[in-house]
């Protein structure tokens, strides 16, 4: 299953890229990410509660950042295993300047298996799109919060 899209966020590209590879920011923005620990260079283990509405599963996941070319490109790979099945996803993010803002263009491939895939098939695509939407929404408010800090202090 593919997810793709473009998101414009009102923050300069260098700042945007730094945020996207910052585990503290990723933890805040990945929907349902409860904890994230560094296990190696650009490698993290995470606990995710993913789902929609009251239907949820807990996943133990590994998150790794690959092919980092600052400040324009990297690949985010997430593999999660949990009681309701497994999720494997990888996404390429490309950042380009859009005036003082940044366009983030993403294309990803998500594979879901196990119980979730067999009973939830009709909702998976919509869920993936929704989670991607939530990620960028959180990222946007995180960038706004960061932009405010220096002015306030």
């Amino acid at each position, binding site marked *: 299953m593919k997810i793709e899209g473009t998101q414009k966020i009102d923050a300069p590209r260098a700042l945007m890229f730094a945020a996207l590879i910052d585990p503290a920011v990723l933890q805040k923005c990945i929907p349902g990410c409860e904890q994230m620990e560094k296990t190696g260079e650009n490698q993290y283990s995470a606990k995710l509660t993913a*789902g*929609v*509405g*009251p*239907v*949820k*599963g807990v996943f133990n996941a590994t998150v790794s950042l690959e092919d980092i070319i600052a400040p324009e490109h990297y690949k985010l790979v997430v593999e999660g295993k949990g*009681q*309701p099945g497994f999720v494997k996803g990888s996404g390429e993010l490309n950042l380009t300047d859009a005036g003082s803002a940044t366009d983030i263009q993403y294309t990803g491939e998500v594979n879901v298996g196990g*119980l*979730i895939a067999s*009973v*939830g*098939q*009709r*909702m*998976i*695509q*919509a*869920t993936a*799109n*929704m989670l991607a939407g939530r990620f960028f929404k959180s990222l946007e408010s995180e960038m706004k919060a960061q932009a405010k800090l220096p002015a306030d202090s």
Partner: protein
Amino acid sequence: MIPASFDYIAAKSLDEAISLLATHKDDAKILAGGHSLLPAMKLRLMQPKVLIDLGRIKELSYIKEEAGQLRIGAMTTHFQVETSDLLRRVCPLLPETATQLGDMQVRNKGTIGGSVAHSDPAADWPAAILALDAEIVATSARGDRVIKATSFFVEMLTTALEPGEILREIRIPGGKGKSGQAYVKVRHPASGFAVVGVAVNLAADGGKCQSAGVGITGVSPKAYRAANVESGLKGNALDAKTLSAAAAHAADGVDINSDLYASAEYRKQLATVYTRRALEIAASRLK
């Protein structure tokens, strides 16, 4: 296929159910028929610690006319809607929707309130509720809160119900003038859910469309009002050309679902064709 262990409490009154929900909060789920909740629990996709059953609260099961509205209690079963003489007379869209919903077991046990509160993206009721401009009454310790259907369905499996609130009643505004209604669906052969479901509620006067409600389910992550279809009808004579031109806008501005059974492109085509058919049937029933 065996659920995680849970406590079961059969509430004797709505007040008791509200206070039980206030006590157990997120650990609790309301059981209102259970034809979505129990399968999810058996698969352990949902593991509530407490089930609060509304099944024994008789005062939540009714269909009546009051204050110029139709009022349907949350625990009214699909079968009761399907066979209600009152509804067949004044709001045939609801029985027509119920007839096409699930299978006999689901219709006998499942409830309109349970289905609407669960808000499955392919459930049948949301289409009809939207087309009819219904209101949803949520109740909690703070009293009743009336929510418009158009703001009730937030996203897939998520509604505007707040923690502690229980869906109590569905209210349908009384119709004015000549009305014509229809529900048509493409039924998923295995689950019975709507691959595409279109509910239409038309009102006309002097051959011109006065108001149009078009609710569509199954197409997008949540059921929606097809605003561009409605605006293509309002004020116009409901001839074949107008209906077909309006129906072409059935999937305007929404994300379209894609799954093993139907690709987004196929679903969009189905939505257009079934919206046209629903409009034609509803227009032919104007009286």
